[in-house]
């Protein structure tokens, strides 16, 4: 099955108020064309789960500047002043979570686990309101799984079935999010014929991907 759609068609599927996981780390490895199309179609009241708030005019900073994000769940917002301003002014809700914990919460969501136990955050404000579980005399926080309505994935190469390869540090959260979205839309840099990506190079197998955004021909 050829899963390719235009960028506009992909974004038309996303309703206002949707929760979105967006791959990328400071914009590196983010699905930039989908992000721009979300802004063009003015999708509102979004809950966005992403490592960070992007950098000015790069990555999900575009969504934040266009005031389309109701709530951001992220690990770091320091390189985007506008996100700090919106948070302090109470215009956007921000939940900050440790990066390793975010990775594992997304993995738990995508891998069918009930949560993860981590020592990260013990004895800090991150632990507030969370269950502490002792295992063999050591304390851990119970961190619950994260999933989203849509996962928006930035990939390097895809084939027409949706096997995905990633490049260098553009990989980051993308393979984890590709497991944790109820609908997974991948934006590869290029789409190649079946068989061009060898099985050993596939990081996200095609069964995880619902739609592939066509190249910008």
């Amino acid at each position, binding site marked *: 099955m050829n899963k390719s759609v235009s960028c506009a068609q992909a974004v038309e599927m996303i309703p206002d108020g949707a929760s979105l996981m967006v791959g990328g780390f400071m914009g590196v490895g983010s699905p930039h064309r989908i992000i721009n199309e979300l802004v063009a179609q003015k999708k509102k009241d979004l809950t966005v789960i992403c490592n960070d708030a992007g950098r000015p005019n790069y990555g999900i900073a575009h969504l934040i500047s266009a005031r389309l994000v109701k709530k951001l769940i992220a690990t770091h917002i320091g390189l985007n002043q506008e996100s700090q301003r919106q948070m302090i002014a109470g215009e956007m809700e921000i939940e*900050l979570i440790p990066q390793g914990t975010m990775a594992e919460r997304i993995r738990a969501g995508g891998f069918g686990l009930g949560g993860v136990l981590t020592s990260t955050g013990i004895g800090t404000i991150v632990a507030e309101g969370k269950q502490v579980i002792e295992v063999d005399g050591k304390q851990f926080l119970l961190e619950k799984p994260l999933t989203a309505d849509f996962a928006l994935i930035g990939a390097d190469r895809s084939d027409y079935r949706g096997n995905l390869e990633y490049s260098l540090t*553009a990989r*980051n959260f993308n393979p984890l999010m590709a497991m944790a979205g109820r609908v997974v839309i991948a934006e590869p840099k290029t789409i190649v014929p079946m068989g061009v990506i060898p099985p050993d190079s596939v990081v996200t197998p095609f069964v995880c991907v619902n739609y592939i955004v066509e190249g910008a021909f």
Partner: protein
Amino acid sequence: MDEKTIIAKRVALELKDGDLVNLGIGLPTMVPQFLPSKIEVYFQSENGIVGLAAMPAEGYENKALTDAGGGYVGAIPGAASIDSALSFGLIRGGHLDLSVLGGLEVDELGLLANWMIPGKMVPGMGGAMDIVSGAKRVIVAMTHTAKGGKPKIIPACTLPLTSARRVSLIVTELAVIEPTDEGLVLREVAPGVTVEQVVAATSAKLIIPANVLTMPINVDAQAAA
């Protein structure tokens, strides 16, 4: 020699042959240039690479190869791309030998606060909480005092903690201080700095051993070049 260079030079002496090391954004990224040439050290960046190398020459940057701050970097031959779960598995799982990161406050228990100033600056913890909780050794590399001379090594942190785990070492432009069960021990002073100067710039109680060493670094600006 400026204070950041003193700190970076001294921290570089803590890196051992074969170490896997994570460097925080800012001052810690200056450390590699002062490494002794005989040792081989591998750098990990939490955004997903083992085998980070210095910035490539102009024109050779790759948009898919950056450090955790989004700045262009290189990779050594034999580097490995990893996803965020594996990256933090290395950090939390005891595979990361050393982390060097900045600090806003460190207290008498050796606890670090470095990720937010409530109501003023809330960049977020990024990977710092996992790194301080999980790395085998954690070195805080920071200026000894804040702007205006306000001590950053204080009796008890006033800012939100990064971790309940004690850091391994504090390196500033004035001193090397080791948090221990007994408290903060002054191990070294910078060349030309007296114990009294360090004590005056520190509001936390310092344990002063009989023999406080001088940092084994050359601070002569000519020799540093």
